[in-house]
């Protein structure tokens, strides 16, 4: 960076702090959610199966692989590497999660989303689709913000040649 921060427009300075927070929160949530699921391969496979969207064998593979995708994206976000591209991938994943929960609610299934481990069927009165959707929508908002404003503090992006989205 050749221009000192002081000459940046005020918005960019604020945005940079907002992006720092968004990146750390989104990355932290992805990492934690991934680790909690990766702990138990039987649960994570059963959790995907409970959505009844995929054939069983495919659901198992997704149940095993998805937590590691979350861990990878979480680590990349926390490190601040290629923030814009990684945030875009996270946003796509969140859209899929939201669509899956909406589909489950629409079909009248009673399951736990298994977002942070666990999952599977629950008693009809114990679904929390509303909370799950609000949480995912909030995370999606953070991801979209990062696609728009990827520059942040404490990010490895600034050392890479590819400072994606840096204003000229």
């Amino acid at each position, binding site marked *: 960076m050749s221009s000192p921060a002081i000459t940046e427009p005020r918005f960019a300075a604020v945005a940079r702090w907002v992006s720092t927070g968004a990146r750390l929160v989104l990355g932290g949530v992805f990492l934690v959610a991934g680790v909690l699921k990766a702990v138990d391969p*039987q649960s994570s496979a059963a959790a995907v199966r409970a959505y009844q969207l995929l054939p069983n064998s495919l659901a198992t593979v997704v149940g095993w692989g998805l937590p590691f995708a979350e*861990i990878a994206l979480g680590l990349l976000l926390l490190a601040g590497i*290629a923030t814009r591209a990684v945030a875009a991938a996270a946003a796509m994943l969140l859209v899929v999660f939201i669509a899956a929960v909406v589909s489950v609610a629409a079909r009248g299934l009673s399951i736990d989303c298994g977002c942070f481990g666990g999952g599977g069927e629950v008693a009809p009165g114990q679904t929390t689709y509303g909370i799950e959707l609000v949480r995912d929508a909030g995370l999606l908002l953070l991801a979209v913000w990062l696609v728009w404003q990827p520059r942040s503090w404490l990010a490895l992006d600034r050392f890479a040649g590819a400072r994606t989205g840096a204003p000229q």
Partner: protein
Amino acid sequence: MSGPKNMNARERGRLAAEQAAARKRDQRILIAVIAGFVVVVVAAGIGFQAWRTTRSPSVAPSSSSVPAAPVTISDGRPIVLGSPQAPVTITLYEDFHCPHCAEFEEQYGPVIREAQESGAARVELYSLSFIDEGSVAAANAMACAAEAGFGQNYYLGLFANHTLQWRDEQLLDLAAKVGGSSSATFTTCVTSKARADWASSIAAAAKKNGVTATPTMFINGDLIDIQNLTPEALRKMITTASQK
């Protein structure tokens, strides 16, 4: 980002374009590397989980002193674990692959075991099998083990190793690990799914009893609210029930 002062406008423009192209190229390479990283992590993760679910049972639970005798398996009737004369009946509806059942076992299992060992309570186990093929195989093997007289330890072993897929080899291996039998009868019972019909009769019985979720617990016929339970509260409930 300013070039040398003596450059003319055209040269500066060319330099800027080159820099932009280089940046774009770097960016593409970085994104390709990152996509590769994610793919490798996911593939390794899938491989790791496949290994974890297909390996042989590794956790041998401490064997319990719950009275163990061969149990008769009859259609629609649960497996009885513990003294048949015990004053308290703890009815459990569990699937060996249900994640919350494994958590339930971890949290409340010791209290239940204590009551079984002291002769205060017996467990009537409805081993449901709605999650996957492994659930069916495990429920079947559980019945085989109970018939062979090592149901209690096998039950503990199934939950202690709940991340396994429950292929036949794993189920037979578990019997050996928990000090159970490796008799031809047990082996055949497991590999031929001899108690699969019993397992489906248990599913029908659960439906008839209005149980739709696992884990579900009754103490002397009263439904227990597991959501708001603590091990201490469970211990008290069992004591109270045994004094009635």
